[in-house]
């Protein structure tokens, strides 16, 4: 058995098997990924045993680089198993002003040992986006900066006047149009179209360009320019059961640590500027994996120097 485990032939067979699994999973399989199955875990375990046995067989006669590299691989696989057994990951939906401590994963819900309140959700743009009014008359397009008071004269006659622009269109129970947030989540422009003695007031939405198609003798659009988002940021307040509190910001690439847990900015709702989706994780295996990474990189460095 030890001879079988310490053979390079086994390593080649395992590489071929893993390659076949990866190709099948990524190109042909359309279901629950196989990576969580017991047989895939068995393959990983066998690979770790094979690498460890090969290294032990060579013992201290092997160069330090080889030993470190192979030891690092075994440690990374061990870390993957620790993560697999003890990792916690769930989604935490937040609404401003409503503290939450229930996170969801799949169909299950989990009560966190702390509550999270979303104090503010921010979207940063590289530059302030600009709305454009586009008039398309039989393929002839004209583009204008959509500022309030702008008057455009279509070739078919009459006028089109910009009455109002809003960044995040909303409507109250009294049918009043309001700006729901300062973010460009649902931009719209209100136009006064005058032709043949008739006047019509229309709202044109950036995200719903075909809304009034066919109702006017020309096409009109309201696209945005330079609306690239720089960052999403959630300002949150955390409170644990023992009364520990903390305020902090969660952004993409900037997670927030709270005890054993980490909070990650995952998503937001373009229809609701008061909503933010965080991912909460706790993974004790990650430090085992990082230790393995250090060993691997040291091993590669020494291996290259030979």
């Amino acid at each position, binding site marked *: 058995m030890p001879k079988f485990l310490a053979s*390079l032939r086994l*390593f*080649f067979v395992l*590489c071929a098997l*893993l*390659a076949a699994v*990866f*190709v099948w*999973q*990524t*190109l042909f399989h359309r279901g629950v*990924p196989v*990576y969580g199955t017991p047989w895939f875990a068995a393959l990983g375990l066998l690979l770790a045993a094979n690498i460890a046995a090969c290294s032990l067989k060579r013992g201290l006669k092997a160069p330090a680089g080889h030993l470190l590299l192979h030891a690092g691989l075994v440690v990374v696989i061990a870390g*993957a198993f620790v*993560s697999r057994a003890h990792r916690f*990951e769930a989604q935490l939906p937040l609404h401003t002003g409503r503290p939450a401590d229930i996170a969801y994963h799949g169909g299950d819900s989990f009560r966190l040992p702390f509550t999270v309140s979303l104090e503010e959700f921010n979207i940063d743009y*590289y530059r302030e986006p600009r709305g454009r009014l586009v008039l398309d008359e039989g393929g002839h397009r004209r583009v204008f900066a959509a500022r309030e008071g702008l008057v455009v004269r279509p070739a078919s006659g009459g006028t089109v006047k910009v009455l109002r622009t809003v960044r995040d269109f909303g409507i109250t129970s009294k049918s009043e149009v309001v700006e729901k947030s300062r973010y460009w989540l649902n931009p719209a422009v209100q136009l006064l179209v005058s032709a043949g003695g008739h006047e019509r007031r229309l709202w044109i939405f950036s995200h719903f360009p075909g809304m009034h198609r066919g109702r006017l003798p020309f096409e009109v659009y309201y696209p945005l320019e330079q609306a*690239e*988002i*720089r*960052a*999403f940021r959630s300002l949150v307040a955390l409170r644990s059961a023992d009364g520990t509190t903390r305020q902090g910001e969660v*952004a*993409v*690439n*900037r*997670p927030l640590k709270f005890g054993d847990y*980490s909070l*990650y900015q995952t998503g937001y709702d373009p229809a609701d500027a008061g909503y933010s989706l965080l*991912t909460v*994780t706790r*993974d004790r295996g*990650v430090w085992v*994996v*990082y230790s393995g*990474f250090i060993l*691997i*990189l040291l091993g*590669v*460095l020494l*291996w*290259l120097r030979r």
Partner: protein
Amino acid sequence: MAAPMTLVNLSFALSLASLAVYAAGYVLSRPRLARAAPWTLALAWAALTAGLGVRWSAMGRPPLANQYESLLTLIWCLLPLAFYFRRRTGKEEIVPVAALAACLFFGGAALLDRTVRPLMPALRSNWLIVHVLSSMAAYAAFSLAAAAAAWTLLRRGEAEDFLLRLTKAGFAFLTLGIVTGSIWAETAWGAWWSWDPKETWSLLTWLAYAAALHLRLKGVKGRYFAMILLLCFVMVLFTYFGVNFLLSGMHSYA
């Protein structure tokens, strides 16, 4: 953005010129003409460096955010690697091999979207430079190894030590690319490994080269080793291009 494009096009033209000069020297049996090829290729690298530098300065971010920019970075890594191995091994054939590979990649880059966009939130990290640069350096080394392997098979020549050194360099860079990508993924997505198609195919490529290096330890050399390297390079191409075009995942921008 006219200046960076002009410099990139100049670099492409100089790479083509380097290839033409080497071919002319070889066909006309004029060694002095062929000796101009490395200098022309060095000028191509200088033009590309300037082009990437101007693009970086104009955009205010490193030019590593999409496949077009990463492909230019790959070429930028490929040429110095070729000069390093030419110096170490004394093999002049490395120059036309590198020039040919650079021309093919420039041609590929011309088909990609060149629109300049600011960095999306997911890419705004210090890990971007080290992760993309190490991955592109790995692909550059594997490209040179594949080109040299093809050369070995066509010319029935011996490039054993050279092939091994390039493969080892590529393997080391790929290891660094996977490790840094994993640490970055933990910071950005909360998981050091998500079995995203790009991650999976990178691991598959890493396993393929690991197996190739172990096969060589078992005595597989010469033409067989060259053929194995060409097979491994098919996986590099699929990881870099195929995954982006055929599979969806968290690396959709890469």
